Structures are given as C-alpha cells and as structure tokens.
C-alpha cells in the first residue's frame, strides 16, 4: 500500500482521478500526519473539516462521472498571512490573534475553487518579517531536518514561510502557499530540500494577503518538485480587479508546457554573487548546477550585475518603510488586540513610557496596544521605517533607495541582453541552528543576499534542491528569469531537478 503522504500534488490529483484511492483517504492520511507532528509547531490552526469537505466533493464528483477540478483531492497548507474566512488569520502575531476574517483572500479562494482542501494555517515569521521562523508569536517552527552529526540541535526551517517549508518536507502536506517579499519562499525551500517559486510581481493577487511591503509582496507555491509548483501556480495566478497591481494577463499553461531541454537558452552566471566567505560546498554546488544546465543544452555565459551589493541595504530601507505604513492600521480599534489600561493606572503608564502627560487615553491605547501586540523584529522594522520616512531623512534614505532600486532593475535588463536566465545559489549557507543568528539582525538579513535583488526587480525566481552538504542538510539552487518568464524558470529548474536526482528526506523523529 502506497503511503499517501509520500505522494506529491500531481500523483494525488492523478490517483484520485484514476480512482486508485479516494480523496477522502488522501485527506485522512494527511490529517493524521498533521495531528502527529505537533513537535514541529508548523500548524497554528488545524482545519480537518475543510480538507474533508473538499475531499467529499471530489469523491462525489467522481462518483457522478463529472470532470474533476484541477486540484480535486489535493489537501494543502495555507500560510497564516492569507485571510481565510472564519479561520484565524493572525500573520503569526499577537496583535491579530483571534482575528477571523469575514472574507477570503483571492489566492486561497482560487485554490478552493480549483478543488483543493485546507489542512490548516501554517506558522511563519511574524508579519513575514524574518528568515528563520523565530519571530512568530506562537513559537519557532522546528525543521524536520537534523544534522548528520548525531546532535539533535533544532534547525531553522527558513523564513518567513517556515511552517510551509517544514510541513512539506515532513510530508504533512504535498504543497502549501508561501509569500515572498525578499526571499521568504525561496530560502525556506532551500533549507528544507523542497521547491518554491516566487512569480513575477503582479501574477498572484495580493488581495486578502496581510500586507508587509506592498511593492515587494508576492504569493507563490511551495511543493516537493517543480511540476507540483507549476500546477499550484496555475491555480493561484490570474488577474484580480481588487488588486491595483494585478497583471491583466491570461495564466499560461505552465504544467503542460514544461520542457527540460535548455537547447538555445543562455544561462547567465552573475559574477557579483561570488560573495566573500561563501562556504566551499555552496561554491561546489553552484559549479555542479552550471554543469547540469550545460548538460541540458544550455549555453553558460558570465554576466555582471554591478549593483548587487546595494540590494540588501536598499531592501532594508524600502521594506521597513512600507511596513511602517502598512502596519499603522493595527491600532486596537477595528480588529485584533486592544490594550486599554484602567483609568487608575494611565498616569503611571504615561510616566513609565515617557508619554506626554497631556496624551488622551486614546493615544495611550494606541501605544500600549502596539507595544503589546508587535514582536521585537516587527517593532525594529517599524522603527527603521518610521525613521527613514521621517522629515529631513526621506530623500537621503527612501528616495535614494528607490533610485538604487532602479539601478538594480537596470542591471537585470542589461544582463538580459546576453542571457535568458540566471543561475545562482539560493542562500549563502545551509540551514542554521535556531538561536544561532537571532542576536545579530544584520547577520540574519544577509541570509537573503541572493534572493533580494530579484525581489526588488519584481522578477520570477525559483529555488530547487541541488544536493546535501557534509552535515546532510539540503542546499538549493536559484533560477531567476525575465519578467513574465515563469516558464523559462520552471523549465530550467526541471532540468536541474532531473539531473540532481534529489531524493533525500528527513527521518520522522517527531
């Protein structure tokens, strides 16, 4: 008997269509796997009823001889950043704890319309701010992977989509949604030996996705292989009038058009991505990737992206600036947490927190609600954002960063004159241990050095597993494409996937 939780999206979809197993059997197997994996802390809310209802519909449709929907019989995980009607959507924060939206995000609705069921809401870095899933109000997600040194040091699943990456790698769900602002799909995918694609900015609607940095935020799928990502992305993409930056374009048939031949494709290797202190194993994997794309028929060319080193500092102005604006809405009035101190202690609180004695209790409520409701990293970014946007600093920081962003995008445009795709490592290291980098914000930010530039330029980019390091941990390769060329990105990743033959998976210790 096949273990249904070992199967991917395509296998589950095709198996349910063929009647090899029922959608209900698939849902039940995954519901049990989720319920047994509490130690990973990947799920914030479990929604077995949702998954079972979708499975029943799929089985009934098949019994009635109807054509099955594209994701009929496939249960998935939903990142907590997506608003799901009637189900807590907290962005893993305290300030939104208990928030049950009255509406459904466009992307999640599209997945349900395609027949998918929801196993639950996935843990993440609070408001998607983090690279290790250590900023969640509801505790760290523990990666299912462990180093092969016999030690049991709990490892980071990457972030911010760490609940998504951990649960897919641990076979709790075949696929999940992620969101990527500076690498939050690709870096966790690389850390856990799975695939994940951030499409071109505007492919997936941002409506109902709790906002972090609106000019960068983009949803995308995470799954165990390239084909499964293509299937998911087709269901998630498409024009939405409710998002002003949504692209008014038809959704290509990415799955049907998959083609692992890179004949005639020029693959650029950006010289500036050879950063200092890159571990030799990452360097070696990158070289291996170059050999794989050559083997697939691609022509490899060296290219230059001269402003690469400025991408991270520009990102850490733009993203916090947008976050400080977006998160201004959490004020304890319309939804979420309210911390309204008793009248008898308000004067004391004003003294303790240095608030003006003249402040009305409404102002005290705002300040206390936000102090109580936001975690340290979220506060840090709101403060940075407030600072760089404040009077006198706006031009020196924010305007300068947006100009540098233009130069970064121009670097890519120039590169496309000599190549069609770019191949880079996804992250500068394998998964690190929880707590290892949390004391130094900049060390944590540097984890996104290879993923941030393509985010700033809005380009499609994907991480695919390439191999294991000496400690037995997965390493990922990243392919970046021209705007709207998700097909080229998926094809190149498929070529790499076929040659890497990545079959490693974590032992179930949980």
């Amino acid at each position, binding site marked *: 008997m096949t273990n249904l939780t070992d199967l991917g999206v395509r296998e589950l979809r095709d198996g349910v269509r063929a009647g090899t197993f029922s959608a209900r059997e698939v849902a039940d197997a995954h519901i049990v796997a989720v319920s047994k994996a509490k130690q990973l802390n990947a799920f914030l809310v479990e929604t077995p009823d949702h998954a079972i209802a979708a499975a029943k519909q799929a089985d009934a449709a098949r019994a009635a001889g109807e054509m099955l929907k594209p994701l009929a019989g496939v249960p998935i995980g939903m990142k907590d950043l997506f608003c799901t009607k009637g189900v807590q959507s907290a962005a893993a924060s305290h300030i939104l704890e208990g*928030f049950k939206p*009255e509406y459904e995000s466009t992307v999640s609705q599209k997945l349900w319309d395609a027949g998918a069921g929801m196993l639950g809401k996935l843990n993440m870095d609070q408001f998607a701010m983090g690279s290790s899933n250590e900023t969640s109000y509801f505790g760290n997600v523990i990666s299912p992977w462990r180093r092969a040194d016999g030690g049991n040091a709990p490892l980071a699943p990457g972030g911010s989509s760490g609940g998504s990456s951990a649960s897919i790698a641990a076979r709790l769900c075949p696929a999940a949604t992620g969101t990527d602002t500076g690498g939050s799909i690709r870096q966790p995918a690389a850390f856990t030996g799975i695939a994940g694609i951030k499409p071109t*900015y*505007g492919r997936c609607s941002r409506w109902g996705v709790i906002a972090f940095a609106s*000019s960068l935020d983009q949803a995308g799928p995470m799954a165990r292989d390239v084909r499964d990502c293509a299937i998911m992305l087709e269901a998630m993409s498409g024009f939405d*009038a409710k998002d*002003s930056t949504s692209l*008014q374009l038809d959704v290509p048939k990415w799955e049907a058009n998959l083609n692992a031949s890179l004949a005639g494709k020029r693959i650029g290797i950006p010289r500036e991505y050879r950063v200092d202190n890159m571990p030799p194993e990452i360097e070696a994997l990158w070289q291996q990737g170059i050999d794989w794309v050559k083997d697939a028929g691609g022509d490899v060319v060296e290219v230059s992206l001269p*402003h690469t080193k*400025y991408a991270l*500092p520009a990102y*850490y*102005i733009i993203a916090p600036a947008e976050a400080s604006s977006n998160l201004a809405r959490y*004020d*304890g*009035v*319309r*939804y*979420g*947490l*309210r911390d*309204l101190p008793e009248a008898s202690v308000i004067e004391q*609180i004003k003294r303790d*927190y*240095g*608030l003006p004695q003249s402040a*009305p*209790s*409404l*102002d005290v*409520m*705002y*300040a*206390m609600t*936000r*102090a109580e409701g936001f975690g340290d990293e979220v*506060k*840090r970014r709101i*403060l*940075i954002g*407030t*600072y*760089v946007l*404040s009077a006198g600093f706006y031009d*020196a*920081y924010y*305007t*300068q*960063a*947006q*100009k*540098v*962003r*233009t*130069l970064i*995008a121009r670097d890519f445009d120039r590169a496309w004159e000599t190549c069609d795709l770019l191949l880079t490592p996804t992250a500068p290291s394998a998964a690190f241990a929880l707590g290892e980098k949390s004391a130094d*914000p*900049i060390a944590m930010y540097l984890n996104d050095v290879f993923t941030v530039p393509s985010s*700033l*330029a809005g380009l499609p980019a994907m991480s695919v597993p390439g191999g294991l390091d000496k400690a037995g941990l997965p390493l990922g390769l990243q392919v970046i494409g021209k705007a709207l060329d998700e097909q080229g990105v998926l094809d190149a990743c498929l070529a790499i996937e076929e040659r890497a033959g990545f079959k490693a998976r974590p032992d179930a210790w949980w």
Partner: protein
Amino acid sequence: MSVDAATVKKIASLARIAITDEEVAKIAPELDNILGWIEQLGEVDCTGVEPMTAVIANQLRLRDDVVTDGGKRDAVLANAPQAEHGFFTVPKVIE
C-alpha cells in the same frame, strides 16, 4: 549619524509604540548599527536616475465611479475589540 536614545523615543512616539527606557537602551545601538550599514547606499552615484515607481510596467486601471461594494456593516464590525450601536467605540477623547 548616530541614533541616540532621544531619537529612538521620538520615532517610537511617531510610530505610536510605547517604549520603556530599558527598551530604548537596547534598541538604540541596534538601530544605530543597522542604519550605519544602510548608509553605504550614499556611495552610489544616482545622478539622473529616477526613483523606482513600478517594478513591472503596468497601467493603473480606472473604473466607473459607481458603488461596487457595501452594506456590510456587521461584517466590518465583527472583529472589533469593542463595537456599540453599529459603531467602533474608542475611549472618550473630548472631556
């Protein structure tokens, strides 16, 4: 340019986040460090470069100026920490 305690207090007040003196003492050097790192952007020559406004060329759509949504008072109020008589309620601000 260094970020001192007074600056942190000022931006925390602009951001409406209550902050204690102990927190200020911890956050000030962190922000100073991060902003110092960010300052390398100043070395990029951006003469004649326009700030980015859209990553993908896209036209902002216009639609007819008609009501397309509404009549959802109870849904809008459903998650309010406190709502009365069909309104959000806040502490008294006028004595």
